[in-house]
């Protein structure tokens, strides 16, 4: 009841602002999420929606709400490293799914308006300790899927933390299919698009949003305000264009290095083509997604400095671009110095992001197998918390319990990388979240099947 009242208050926007709350979570096993190993009997302090301190010798501020986490584990919330969370309520129901479009636009598509914080997958992932998600669109009929966002899973209507965080494109098999059937076609399409955007960009000031009063250097800020705004209508373009004006405009921040270009590729040779792109377009801020065969070219990926968001347990030659797939991929890339994170790429990514912590646990287990490459526990947790945040340039804001990060904190019943654990309390921006879902309500309704005086439909 209290929870549902809290939820109601959140939905009405009448909740006590986060800034009013100071929370101290004490006596738990605390893992910071930065790759370090967990600390026994630690304290985590959240104030004004941000982490103030976390560690073994942290004092509890006066007046704080103290939560005893003895016997529990405390970590940053899980960051879904690559997902489609919030874009679909039921995958196979078209009207409830906004992952891709067959319409006229591609790069200009911005997923932010599609995010539905009331969707069941958001609630289920929140209840499983996922607090933020990197959300990408899927391609429709172009190699450009559009612009993805960082969202939170909070039980409120303000889900989008950063819109237009990145442009997502497909190279590799999917890209080649989208481009007309070959990899060369996809690469020409990409280069042509970047050329069109460059031409368009030359007629524009570097910041496309001078009116919002934000004085920060836009190159330091990964978020593009609105590349599609109407004043681009006056920009002159040559006759030799393929992209719509909106699509070309959306790529201006990409070629200027103000918006991340996230590229999905799996095959070793495709990965090296992405690395080569950087030489051709030095301002691109690249992130690779997938990289099933990354371990075979790990030294070159490491030298490029391009972050990689990889599938943790992909180990089947599911296609000809993943012939060398192995669960040791993440560990081997990490050992070679690649900046790796874990994502759920094309892996039930509209709704199963909560599996990522178990995947990370599997990589700890892998370390025990001769010939395999796994991860330390601390590094495994980082792969699903701080590393994805760092991959998209937001490591200072989310993904760990280091001071100043958003107050996204989860108290777990036990070791969160083991599958017996459950989230027992979830905070997002310092606000405690409801953990009830349709699933918990259905369980309550049907856990007793003995006939009642009224049908099950009356059990609420």
């Amino acid at each position, binding site marked *: 009841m209290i929870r549902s009242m809290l939820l109601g208050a959140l939905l009405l926007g009448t909740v006590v602002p986060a800034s009013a709350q100071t929370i101290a979570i004490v006596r738990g096993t605390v893992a910071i999420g930065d790759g370090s190993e967990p600390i026994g009997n630690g304290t985590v302090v959240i104030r004004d929606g941000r982490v103030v301190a976390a560690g073994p010798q942290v004092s509890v501020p006066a007046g704080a709400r103290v939560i005893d986490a003895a016997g529990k584990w405390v970590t940053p919330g899980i960051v879904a490293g690559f997902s489609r969370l919030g874009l679909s309520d039921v995958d196979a129901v078209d009207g409830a799914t906004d992952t891709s479009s067959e319409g006229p636009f591609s790069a200009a598509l911005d997923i932010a308006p599609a995010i539905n914080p009331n969707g069941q997958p958001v609630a289920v992932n929140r209840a499983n300790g996922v607090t933020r998600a990197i959300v990408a669109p899927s391609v429709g009929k172009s190699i450009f899927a559009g612009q993805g966002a960082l969202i939170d899973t909070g039980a409120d209507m303000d889900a989008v933390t950063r819109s237009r965080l990145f442009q997502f494109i497909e190279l590799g098999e999917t890209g080649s299919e989208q481009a007309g059937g070959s990899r060369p076609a996809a690469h020409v399409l990409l280069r042509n698009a970047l050329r069109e955007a460059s031409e368009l960009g030359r007629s524009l000031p570097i910041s496309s949003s001078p009116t919002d009063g934000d004085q920060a250097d836009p190159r330091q800020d990964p978020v593009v305000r609105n590349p599609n705004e109407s004043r681009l209508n006056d920009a002159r373009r040559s006759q030799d264009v393929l992209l719509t004006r909106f699509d070309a405009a959306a790529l201006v921040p990409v070629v200027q290095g103000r918006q991340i270009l996230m590229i999905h590729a799996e095959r070793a040779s495709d990965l090296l083509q992405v690395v080569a792109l950087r030489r051709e377009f030095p301002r691109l801020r690249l992130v690779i997604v997938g990289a099933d065969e990354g371990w075979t070219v790990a030294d070159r990926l490491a030298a490029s400095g391009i972050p990689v968001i990889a599938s943790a347990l992909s180990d089947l030659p599911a296609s000809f671009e993943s012939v060398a797939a192995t669960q040791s991929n993440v560990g081997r890339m990490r050992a070679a110095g690649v900046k790796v994170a874990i994502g759920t790429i094309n892996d039930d990514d509209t709704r199963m992001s909560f599996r990522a912590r178990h995947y990370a646990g599997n990589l700890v287990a*892998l370390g025990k197998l001769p010939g395999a490459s796994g991860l330390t526990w601390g590094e495994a947790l980082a792969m699903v918390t701080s590393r994805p945040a760092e991959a998209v340039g937001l490591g200072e804001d989310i993904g760990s319990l280091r001071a100043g990060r958003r107050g996204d904190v989860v108290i777990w019943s036990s070791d969160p990388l083991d599958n017996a654990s459950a989230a027992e309390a979830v905070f997002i921006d310092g606000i405690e979240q409801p953990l009830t879902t349709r699933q918990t309500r259905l369980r309550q309704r049907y856990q007793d099947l003995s006939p009642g005086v009224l049908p099950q439909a009356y059990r609420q």
Partner: protein
Amino acid sequence: MSMRPNFAAAALAATLAGCASTGNKPVAVPVNRDPYPSTYQAYPGAPTLLRGATVLDGEGGRIERGDVLLVDGKVQAVGQGLAAPAGALVVDAAGKYVTPGVIDIHSHLGDYPSPGVQAHDDGNEATGPSRPEVWAEHSVWPQDPGFSRALANGGVTTLQVLPGSANLFGGRSVTLKNVPARTVQGMKFPGAPYGLKMACGENPKRVYGSKGQIPSTRMGNIAVTRQTWLQAQAYKRKWDAYEAKGGDMPDRDLAMDTLRGVLAGEILVQNHCYRADEMANMIDLSHEMGYKITAFHHAVESYKIADLLQREGICSAMWADWYGFKMEAYDAIPENVPLVDRAGACAIVHSDDPNGIQRLYQEAGKAMASGRRAGMPITEEHAWTWLSANPARAMGIFDRTGSLKPGKMADVVLWNGNPFSTYTRPERVWIDGALMYDANNPRLRPVSDFELGQPGQGDVK
């Protein structure tokens, strides 16, 4: 060569029939019920004593500091302080777990193999809603690299490969030993009964509705299913009479042969069905037409009718936490497996997935943990029945495998830790007493023809 005895038998039968036909009524020619027989042979294994493990016997028993003795391909003894026979290999299993091998009742390995290219798209004969004439084994590509992953990462020793769910009657399933072979016959579990894949719900009506055919609705699904069973009953009457009394041989129909096998109780019905209300319809339908449903697969709403399933003696094959991927999966809950189990109904954890099959043991762990959180005390030894005894029963092979009882096939996994945990992997896997996987020995890691000579060949994967 394996065909020769059958040709011979058929020829002999034909000869006899020919002789007999000199009388006024020809004697019936028996139909060969096993025309693609198993050629599986257990590989050699040394007598092996696993010593000092936590043993989960697969049918609910647990022994601490337990020993398991494997001799001549069979479990010879399970207990404490067993003596090693002369020459036996003794494995120190202290601090580790020993269980029967994982049995996946729902797989499409081989039928939808890796790489998942269109040329390998062999799981659904989606050209008509009733296709009981197709047999999954005729689509199985034994070189699917997925088999080796299921063995090495999942400890899977037996699996049922089913046709897909595009059709109301998808065809016959096949039960395989997870031992690499050149042919599917070389993997077939000797003597395992066939299954019939049936489906209700969204898939058949979507596939045929989109072609403007029946069924395009759930009521269409039921109507076509009933009509098909009526045909099968007529066929069975004709053939039963012929086999009892001889006379003119009726026309054979492969589709009807399969359904007749179901009506005769020889073929087990494996029914893809998500929603509680649809399962109830299929139960009534089975009563109407005179057959038994062995298991509902993907039964995400079994928790709503666990009492009914218990009364009917029908198993539910379930995922631990899949939900929301289609409308009929919208009400899936993570306590489904434990709630079905608590009602005294048969609960099975299944994969339907080439990745999930590698972690079925962890899926069972999640289901167990969800149940415990919801207040259901579930022991580890009981939870392992979801992975071995229960699927073995629902596949008709529990008399031969699925638990560590003396005389059963030595299908055994040594786990390097608690076998429900993300932190645990199979250390060794024996099938019929032969060591088919050893994490510490790279030579005991199968590599499919497809992966031979490719980047990453022989990798730990």
